């Protein structure tokens, strides 16, 4: 076996840290995870699992994850090495992020609910993010039952193998994310607290797993067809969007706690929000140990025990319910697709002729239906909103201990430029236009004589702005009515829309070399020259706009906004007249 052999053009050729399996049997022989599961061979056999089949299935599943170009592709960035699983190679990121948590544990050793609770909450969110990116593919794999159970694999063995496969990633993530916090808890809080935190964390890991099973089981039970797919897609998108916020949470909390000399390093009384956020329950034993009083520690410990007991009894039926309903994912939806008011209004107002309307509708429907596109683009759009909070928080913490916080928030400059933050995600939204689940469907256009590619591309770009960017800019702008007078809000929104459209057009021009919907979703090469250039241009444009908004009188901003918006719309209508991309199937007909 040649360790340095290039397997495919995506290999960067660098030396792997450990031998990359060339074949499944090498993985089956050498995998440390399979050797770990071998320790439980006796137990699994006693409970009725066919261990050789179990081992075979888990081994092949891990091998498939290693060779699948789309597995955890958002981490991979197009630099997959043969046989190396993108998830495992990305674990160091989670370990690095966990270093931040030392700060909380170290700062609040006397307040486990905040110190340890932040670590638990952070871990839970990262778990949910990885659930969406890695586990859900295995959990919701409709092929397993048909491929395995028709070939003499019992439901018990298949289910055990599926669980083990997912546990590989659950455990890996746990070790990467929680080792540092657990070790630091021993250091900052002492051995008894450290041991209790270790045990509570492991229990939280298992409860998180059951929560994710339960969530999918409930959704699969109550929904079907198109609505089921939409709900699953929405859950996954919400989790990823929230994780964007979670990454900023340590920074935000640190700054807020610094303001006004707030000291949170003391035991807390029980508060209602602790009961709502279940990761906090797992700080109960530590809090109880510290205070020796029932209050928060006792209540949270009872909640934690309840979670454990419920998880124990819920797991098996939920798993069974989930598996039994998996076939719903491959059912075609028979309910008609509804055309919402927004779509109908935009289809009426925006396109100016028949061709434009056709491709505007196509692009709208593509974006509406494509879950992969939404999962990649919506979090980037959400970053804009998170950035508003990120910029707001330091101004609060720097305002001085005597300052009235409400007044500081009210008079903050960030509200004026808030619509501009919403342009952050436009670059990604334009970039991901090129991807689609079924690019060969675009071959249809290669068969149409004298097909106008410009219209196709222009309307795809226009749809990004009309469907994604513009509504976000307007909504965020309207929210600033709480803090700004209406005429200023209108001016800010118009500038935001105008500059947002300009950024859209420029990025569309930078990326017009690739046909929309023409490539399979893979490791996104987001750091390509075109996207970096697009980001830089977006930042310059938005910064100039920001200065104008802050320093110019509102009426001048309003006039500028109208001019930029109208002018950009005119430019868009005359853009991309000379696109040269190749459509799928076009070379077939040469």
């Amino acid at each position, binding site marked *: 076996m040649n360790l340095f052999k290039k397997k495919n053009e995506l290999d960067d050729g660098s030396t792997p840290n450990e031998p990359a399996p060339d074949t499944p049997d090498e993985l089956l022989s050498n995998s440390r995870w399979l050797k770990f599961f071998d320790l439980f061979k006796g137990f699994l056999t006693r409970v009725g699992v066919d261990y050789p089949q179990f081992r075979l299935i888990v081994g*092949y599943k891990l091998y498939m994850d290693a060779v699948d170009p789309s597995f955890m592709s958002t981490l991979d960035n197009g630099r997959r090495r043969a046989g190396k699983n993108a998830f495992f190679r990305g674990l160091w990121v989670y370990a690095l992020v966990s270093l931040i948590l030392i700060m909380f544990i170290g700062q609040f050793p006397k307040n486990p609910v905040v110190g340890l609770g932040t670590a638990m909450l952070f871990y839970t969110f990262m778990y949910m993010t990885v659930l969406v990116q890695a586990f859900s593919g295995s959990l919701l794999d*409709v092929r397993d039952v048909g491929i395995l159970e028709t070939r003499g694999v019992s439901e018990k063995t298949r289910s055990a193998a599926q669980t083990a496969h997912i546990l590989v990633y659950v455990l890996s993530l746990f070790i990467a994310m929680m080792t540092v916090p657990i070790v630091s808890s021993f250091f900052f809080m002492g051995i008894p607290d450290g041991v209790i935190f270790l045990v509570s964390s492991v229990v939280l890991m298992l409860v998180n797993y059951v929560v994710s099973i339960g969530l999918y089981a409930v959704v699969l039970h109550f929904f079907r067809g198109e609505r089921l797919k939409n709900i699953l897609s929405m859950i996954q998108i919400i989790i990823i969007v929230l994780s964007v916020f979670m990454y900023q949470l340590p920074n935000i909390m640190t700054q807020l706690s610094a303001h006004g000399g707030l000291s949170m390093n003391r035991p807390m009384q029980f508060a209602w929000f602790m009961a709502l956020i279940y990761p906090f329950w797992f700080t109960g034993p530590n809090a109880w140990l510290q205070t020796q009083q029932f209050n928060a520690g006792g209540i949270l410990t009872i909640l934690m025990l309840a979670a454990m007991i419920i998880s124990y009894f819920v797991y098996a039926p939920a798993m069974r319910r989930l598996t039994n309903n998996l076939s719903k994912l491959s059912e075609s939806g028979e309910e008609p697709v509804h055309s919402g008011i927004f779509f109908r209004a935009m289809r009426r107002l925006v396109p100016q002729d028949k061709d434009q309307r056709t491709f505007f509708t196509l692009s709208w429907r593509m974006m509406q239906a494509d879950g992969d596109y939404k999962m990649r683009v919506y979090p980037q759009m959400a970053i804009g909103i998170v950035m508003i909070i990120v910029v707001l928080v330091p101004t609060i913490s720097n305002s001085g201990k005597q300052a009235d916080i409400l007044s500081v928030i009210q008079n903050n400059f960030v509200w004026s430029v808030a619509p501009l933050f919403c342009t952050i995600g436009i670059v990604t939204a334009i970039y991901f236009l090129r991807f689609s689940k079924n690019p060969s469907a675009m071959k249809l256009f290669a068969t149409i004589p004298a097909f106008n590619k410009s219209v196709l591309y222009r309307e795809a770009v226009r749809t990004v702005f009309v469907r994604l960017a513009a509504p976000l800019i307007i909504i965020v702008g309207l929210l600033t009515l709480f803090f700004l007078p209406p005429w200023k809000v209108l001016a800010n929104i118009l500038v935001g829309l105008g500059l947002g459209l300009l950024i859209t057009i420029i990025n569309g021009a930078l990326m017009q070399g690739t046909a929309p919907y023409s490539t399979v979703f893979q490791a996104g090469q987001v750091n390509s020259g075109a996207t970096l250039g697009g980001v830089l241009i977006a930042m310059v444009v938005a910064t100039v706009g920001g200065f104008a908004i802050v320093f110019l009188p509102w009426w001048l901003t309003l006039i500028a906004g109208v001019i930029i918006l109208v002018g950009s719309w005119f430019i868009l209508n005359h853009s991309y007249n000379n696109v040269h991309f190749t459509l799928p199937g076009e070379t077939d007909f040469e």
Partner: protein
Amino acid sequence: MAAIIELSDVYKSYEVTPILTGLSFSVDPGTIVGYIGPNGAGKSTTVKMILGLTKVDRGTISVFGQEIHPGDTDYKKRIGYVPESADVFDVLTAKEYLGFVGQLYGMPQADAEAKASELLTIVGMKSSIDARISGFSKGMRQMVLIIASLLHNPDLLFWDEPLNGLDANSVLIIEEVLQRLRDSGKTIFYSSHILDVVQKVSDRILLLNDGKVIANGTFAELNAEKDQTLQELFNELTGFSEHGQKAADFVNVIEAG
């Protein structure tokens, strides 16, 4: 001779919709049975119940002379199945996937992969042995499924639309393979909407409609001096005679511009 498959008064409903309503038939070993019926008749449900993928509400199913129960797995190791939906782990190569399937049936990996490579070579896929299934055409994928169903030399085969996507030469090969497998004593349960092929290959025909068998016999017995094709017989027995009118309406709409 004991039947290799026997269904006795089987009922199955999905939620409140009855799918099978007292289905009964038996299949003798060493025969090709054409299992046909309109969409929604219950063909796939029948196969799923026999393969243990879905439970029977009422009635009994026996395979290889033994009544099957939920959780039974041993009998499945003597069965080969080609599903209508071409579900495979397509990130694997053809050899890897077939090696995996062979091992599930208890074959040593090397034997399974060697046999798979040989079979793929015979059907003209030698250059694709180490290629990922994700890049295969529909016909190539189907051939992998067919080979996966035969690798372990099963006694009983369930083939649902097995010729889907195959080119004309491959169709001829598989039709010939079917006959030879039957001649060697295997039993094939063949389900398809392409009735010309069903008529050609089947020893017996089971016609399912509304969850019940409405015709059971050789083609000659079912035809009984009518001199019809199987397609015509099918239309007559299932009560569908509107195809001419529907075709005319279809063309009228197209030509109306």
